[in-house]
């Protein structure tokens, strides 16, 4: 496999509705931004790009089959190769990885990944119905198909198993809405308190409206290139481009139906799912104790797909200690609860510790005042967690940026690229969210009830 660089990206404004543009024209906004940021004009880029991958989740939302080719056509990329990928909420993450494969394999030197979703074309409740069609339509959907309900059942079990509290979930909402204040691309910035989150209308107990992301219209685009492709782009641009490479990718899957998720033994977990960073006598004892008290893995409280995606990506990127070897994470926080579940899958903390991890301040930005007091909670238990230890969703995540499904995973790649380039100030017109000395970031894209999950590691080349 060849080294693959992420060289440029663009994101359209995410909004509740973008009736002023058709979907190809919304993608064009993101594409133009990415090309302009390279210092190129479309005809120059058109000459150098070898192919594309298109990302959108739902043919129901689009009500246009082969929407991918309409974008390829509108962008002026015909007759170059291209195809569409689909994998629920992880569609954008899968698109990024397929573009990576295209370049890594030598099929292309410069590959464009673009994605969109236009969810405003039906009302919110019909939109929820469309999304719920991504659950088994014989056994799950007819019972009351509603993704917020599915995630609420997961977190109810998480609370039961681990003592996670709704207030810990609310910390994630406060963080992501507040981060979004400094991100002009975000749809839903807000200054909230934990009480605001808990007092918002209950959607699916225990999740309130402020625990859940919103529907969006929007698009994102990313340019990936090989060493040769990068050289060609640099020659055309007349300047050296920052080196941000993809250090490793990983992907995992799990059963479509939540009900079918296994309840594995401790031994199977150790063999298949334990991260190298967890392979200590102390953590083995911690997990053994969980199993002795009836914990089973993954059950409905944990995402095995997210764990396996992380494990594969870390192994390929040479990450032994994710908490300390990754500088920030953009992860798929469709729900505050899924952000907490994902901390655990990604090994930022152990299974069961996601709630205290959120409330410790560790995933918050170090330089922003959230109006929260971070408990020096059982300081003796978690002595190494401190505010800003590993910012998660510095952009505001899905909860505050919006979640136009096919664009989301690519949006994460763009924001991660800008972090690693050190260009957040340029793109956001505010450098509050720019992390100092960010060298390595992880992006995490997640589908269904944890059915497809992708993790990709981006790294600044020194």
């Amino acid at each position: 496999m060849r080294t693959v660089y992420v060289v440029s990206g663009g994101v359209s404004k995410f909004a509740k509705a973008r009736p002023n543009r058709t979907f190809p024209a919304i993608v064009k906004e993101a594409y133009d931004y990415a090309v302009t940021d390279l210092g190129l004009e479309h005809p120059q880029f058109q000459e150098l790009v070898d192919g594309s991958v298109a990302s959108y989740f739902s043919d129901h939302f689009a009500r246009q089959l082969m929407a991918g080719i309409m974008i390829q056509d509108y962008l002026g990329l015909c007759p170059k190769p291209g195809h569409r990928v689909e994998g629920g909420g992880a569609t954008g993450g899968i698109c990024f990885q397929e573009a990576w494969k295209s370049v890594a394999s030598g099929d292309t030197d410069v590959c464009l990944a673009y994605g969109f979703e236009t969810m405003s074309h039906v009302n919110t409740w019909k939109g929820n119905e469309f999304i719920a069609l991504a659950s088994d339509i014989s056994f799950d959907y007819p019972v009351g198909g509603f993704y917020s309900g599915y995630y609420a059942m997961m977190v109810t079990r998480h609370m039961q198993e681990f003592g996670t509290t709704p207030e810990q979930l609310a910390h994630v909402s406060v963080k992501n809405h507040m981060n979004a204040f400094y991100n002009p691309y975000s749809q839903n910035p807000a200054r909230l308190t934990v009480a605001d989150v808990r007092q918002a209308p209950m959607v699916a107990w225990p999740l309130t409206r402020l625990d859940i992301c919103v529907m969006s219209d929007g698009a994102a685009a990313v340019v990936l290139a090989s060493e040769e492709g990068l050289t060609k782009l640099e020659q055309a641009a007349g300047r050296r481009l920052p080196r941000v490479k993809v250090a490793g990718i990983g992907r995992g899957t799990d059963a479509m139906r939540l009900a079918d998720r296994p309840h594995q033994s401790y031994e199977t977990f150790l063999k298949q799912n334990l991260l190298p960073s967890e392979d200590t006598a102390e953590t083995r004892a911690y997990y053994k104790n969980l199993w002795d008290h009836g914990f089973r893995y993954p059950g409905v409280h944990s995402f095995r797909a997210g764990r396996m995606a992380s494990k594969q990506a870390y192994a390929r990127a040479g990450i032994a200690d994710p908490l300390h070897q990754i500088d920030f994470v953009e992860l798929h926080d469709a729900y505050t609860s899924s952000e907490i579940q994902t901390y655990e899958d990604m090994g930022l903390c152990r299974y069961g510790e996601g709630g205290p991890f959120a409330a410790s301040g560790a995933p918050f930005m170090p330089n922003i005042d959230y109006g929260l007091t971070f408990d020096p909670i059982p300081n003796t238990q978690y002595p190494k967690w401190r505010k800003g230890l590993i910012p998660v969703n510095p952009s505001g995540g899905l909860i505050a940026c919006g979640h136009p499904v096919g664009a989301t995973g690519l949006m994460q790649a763009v924001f991660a690229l800008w972090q690693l380039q050190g260009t957040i100030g340029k793109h956001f017109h505010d450098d509050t969210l720019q992390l100092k000395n960010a060298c390595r970031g992880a992006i995490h894209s997640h589908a269904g009830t944890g059915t497809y999950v992708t993790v990709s590691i981006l790294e600044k080349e020194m």
Partner: protein
Amino acid sequence: MTEPRFATKLPETDDGAILFNVPFPAELNAETLAALKEMAPIIVKQPYAINYIHSYGQDSPFFAGLANGRLLGSMDPDSGYTYATPRGHDMTSGAETDWVDLTGREARVHTFTVCHFGSEEFLPETPFILALIEFEGADTLFLGRLIGLDPNAAGLDWVGMRVGLRFRRNSKFKPTDVYFYPLEIRGD
């Protein structure tokens, strides 16, 4: 950003006005043509309804069972691994599963939620309780509706609650032909 106690915003609806024309420049010239780029979008409603012919395929006996007051799961013939939500083939052995009757087994709430909102199809039924049910001797769960509890009194003490199952007499051939109710009241 405290939510007001009473709604201060009307929900959006899909019914618009019937409209046969919109303003347009009386004369087209360079200036009016350029101004068209600033025109507000025309948004039209396009009804979209279908009848879809869905087959339950190899899962059909499950629905026939519900219509006849039986809850069927499936089981790997060798390992005995039992699926409370049936599947035609076992995920470990790859072998075709056998049908197994779960109707009389002890059932408990594994986890639940109360949906105060829902997809459009189910919105009129809110609030309703979704629960994943565990059955004695089964390795996987079953998603169903739980009734007979106060939806405003949700609490973790519902987890682990013993439940009974009932069947609709007039089957709709949906998984909701079976539903669950508490055999013990907790949290009151």
